[in-house]
């Protein structure tokens, strides 16, 4: 996984952009993950070009779902004022006929549901492609699968509420599936045969479910983000309002029309269908209720089983961070920076400091962000702490291939690391790391004092970071004096950070070429023979106090 800190040395790791390493699980899953990453890289690069990395809707797919959820709650509360369980179709028809109070709002409600399904699918695909499905992230994945199921249930109840031909089809398909379960002695399908009018209590229960399910979704969503530190819930405002505005515009430009009222004595030739929530209908109709339910259960179990099949096992599993208590000063920065809330500060018994960092292995995803946040380099996954990074950098500098004044391009293996060949072609020396966020700033200083002309860090776009906050913390540490900062004595003209996604080859080439050109215009660096980097704290045995 990591290049800089691995035993193989910095230049012998996977930097081909596939992200394939020795941590991969079984072959078909590995192949699927790699293929997904390629697709995602292309889509991300395209959207970055169109919308910029800050407003890339694919990066923001998760927050867009939350925004749409809020839109659905607000529009739903409005629509429910006009809904009558005793006359469902008639009340919705009256609402739809009235442009000012209903049609646009109903259109927005409907399209927001559809986009929520799409955004949820994109978000899940993104998490799968980026291997963020297992270990400490399994809870988020499983709760996400439950949220998707609840979204479909909510959409199902919403369309049944209307009680048009589409709602009738959904109700019948759902009843056929439900009837295969040995729950009720009388099948629910009986309600829709035409023997009697569909009872009002059915629409009341359906309405109850349509309100209750979103409330349940709120609770599951809390579980979904429970293991995240500082979860981002909403997209940037311009993206949020653009999304809502675009949906509202299409609701106005293309008003909704009512489908015919449900009639148990007529078989409609065509039914206007919302394919985002009813894509399964043709299959369910062709295979029957029991098989349809089995398929649905199998798909659900398959989604829930993803954390199991993608999990890295044994030596392939990246180790969680550990704290060297002899070095830890109790500064709390690692606990603040950890994107997963895996580090807490606990009381220390010795006199060295009042607090000492403690890593909860069950929450740690081995992202290594703490390695970059710890000034004395006392925390991080085994082999990837700041001190380990310095050792690898020294080995890199000691290589006979090193030339004074060359430009080192530190590249995240999930992003710019894919373009090692292009970096070299532009005159840069690729230096792959597992994540720019766990790069300790002392490594940058060491490289410069060791004779490198400049250090360019190709970090992923902030919202594309596999470890959530890596590029953000890196910028803070290099330019804004965040703890474990790049020392003031380091010439900032020789350091640059560029954001490059895994599909942005051209951007990477341009960034490297520009930096190499700028460094060439500077005075040649003066290399120190054996630069010593201040590690601030040398290990002090706790017993010594």
């Amino acid at each position, binding site marked *: 996984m990591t290049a800089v800190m691995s035993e193989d040395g910095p230049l012998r790791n996977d930097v081909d952009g596939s992200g394939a390493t020795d941590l991969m699980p079984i072959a078909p899953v590995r192949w699927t993950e790699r293929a997904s990453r390629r697709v995602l890289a292309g889509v991300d690069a395209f959207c970055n*070009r*169109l*919308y910029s990395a800050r407003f890339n809707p694919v990066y923001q797919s998760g927050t867009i779902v939350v925004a749409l959820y809020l839109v659905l709650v607000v529009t739903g509360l409005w629509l429910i004022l006009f809904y009558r369980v005793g006359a469902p179709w008639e009340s919705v028809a009256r609402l739809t006929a009235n442009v000012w109070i209903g049609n646009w709002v109903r*259109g927005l409600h*409907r*399209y927001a549901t*559809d*986009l929520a399904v*799409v955004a949820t699918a994109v978000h899940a695909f993104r998490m799968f492609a980026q291997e963020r499905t297992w270990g400490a992230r399994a809870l988020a994945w499983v709760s996400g699968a439950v949220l998707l199921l609840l979204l479909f249930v909510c959409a199902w109840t919403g369309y049944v509420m209307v009680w048009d*031909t589409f709602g009738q*089809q959904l109700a019948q398909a759902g009843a056929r599936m439900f009837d295969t379960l*040995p729950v009720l*002695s*009388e*099948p629910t*399908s*009986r309600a829709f*045969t*035409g*023997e009697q009018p569909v009872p009002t209590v059915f629409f009341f229960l359906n309405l109850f479910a349509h309100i209750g399910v979103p409330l349940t979704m709120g609770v599951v969503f809390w579980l979904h983000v429970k293991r995240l530190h500082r979860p981002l819930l909403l997209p940037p405002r311009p993206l949020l309002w*653009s999304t809502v505005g*675009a*949906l509202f*515009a*299409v*609701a106005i430009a*293309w008003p*909704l*029309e009512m489908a015919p009222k449900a*009639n*148990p*004595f*007529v*078989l*409609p*030739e*065509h*039914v*206007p*269908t*919302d*394919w*985002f929530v*009813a894509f399964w*209908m*043709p299959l369910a109709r062709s295979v029957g209720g029991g098989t349809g339910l089995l398929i649905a259960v199998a798909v659900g179990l398959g989604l829930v089983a993803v954390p199991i099949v993608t999990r890295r096992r044994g030596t392939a599993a990246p180790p969680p961070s550990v704290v060297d208590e002899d070095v830890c000063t109790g500064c709390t920065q690692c606990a603040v920076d950890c994107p997963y809330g895996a580090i807490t500060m606990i009381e220390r018994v010795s006199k060295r400091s009042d607090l000492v960092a403690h890593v909860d292995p069950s929450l740690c995803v081995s992202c290594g962000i703490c390695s970059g946040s710890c000034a004395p380099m006392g925390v991080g996954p085994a082999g990837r702490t700041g001190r380990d990074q310095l050792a690898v950098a020294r080995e890199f500098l000691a290589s006979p291939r090193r030339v004074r004044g060359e430009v080192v391009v530190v590249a995240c293996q999930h992003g710019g690391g894919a373009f090692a060949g292009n970096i070299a072609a532009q005159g840069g020396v690729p230096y792959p790391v597992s994540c720019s966020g766990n790069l300790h700033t002392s490594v940058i200083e060491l490289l410069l004092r060791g004779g490198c002309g400049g250090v360019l860090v190709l970090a992923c776009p902030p919202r594309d970071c596999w470890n959530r906050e890596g590029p953000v913390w890196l910028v803070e540490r290099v330019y804004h004096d965040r703890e474990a900062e790049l020392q003031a004595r380091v010439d900032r003209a020789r350091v640059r950070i560029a954001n490059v996604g895994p599909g942005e080859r051209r951007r990477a080439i341009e960034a490297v070429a520009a930096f190499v050109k700028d460094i060439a215009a500077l005075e040649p660096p003066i290399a120190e023979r054996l630069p010593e980097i201040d590690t601030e704290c040398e290990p002090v045995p706790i017993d010594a106090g």
Partner: protein
Amino acid sequence: MQLLNRALALIVTAAIVTGIAWASRLPMAAHGSSDAVLRLAWSARPERIEECRAPSAEELASRPKHMQQKLICDGTAARYRLEVRHDGRLVADHEVRGGGLRHDRRLYVFHELRVPPGNAHVDVRFTRIDSPTSKSASHQRGEVVPARLALDEQLTFRPREVVLVTYDADDRELEIEDGER
């Protein structure tokens, strides 16, 4: 270049939301053929078939007072046979049992048969298979379905019409509904 990208972004966004609105109302072929449907749907209480016996004095004495019944009955619900003929051809032949794991609940009939549009002679028979024995008791909770129900009619099926055959518990006979009759 930036202007071009912005224009492209606008076009792509418009295409996406229009695509969403389009796929949100795209017709699904629900019933492609013009066939009509003969729907048989009803619910009724089946006849209960019981074997009853009087317990011996010793057996009664061995039981707590509140369980000392003078007549002990074991039984089940009767089975029924549903036969449907369309223009004399047998198109459905099913055994129908009561609901629940012990088949002691109400029975439920629900079958849909595709039939071509036009006139047809429909013959529906619902006949009890099991007969109560002489030792049966008649503890019936509510009205049970008759031992034999029959409907024999010439019907006109319009394209994509559903004709419902159901059981009228008040008149204790099968009847036809098609939404207009």
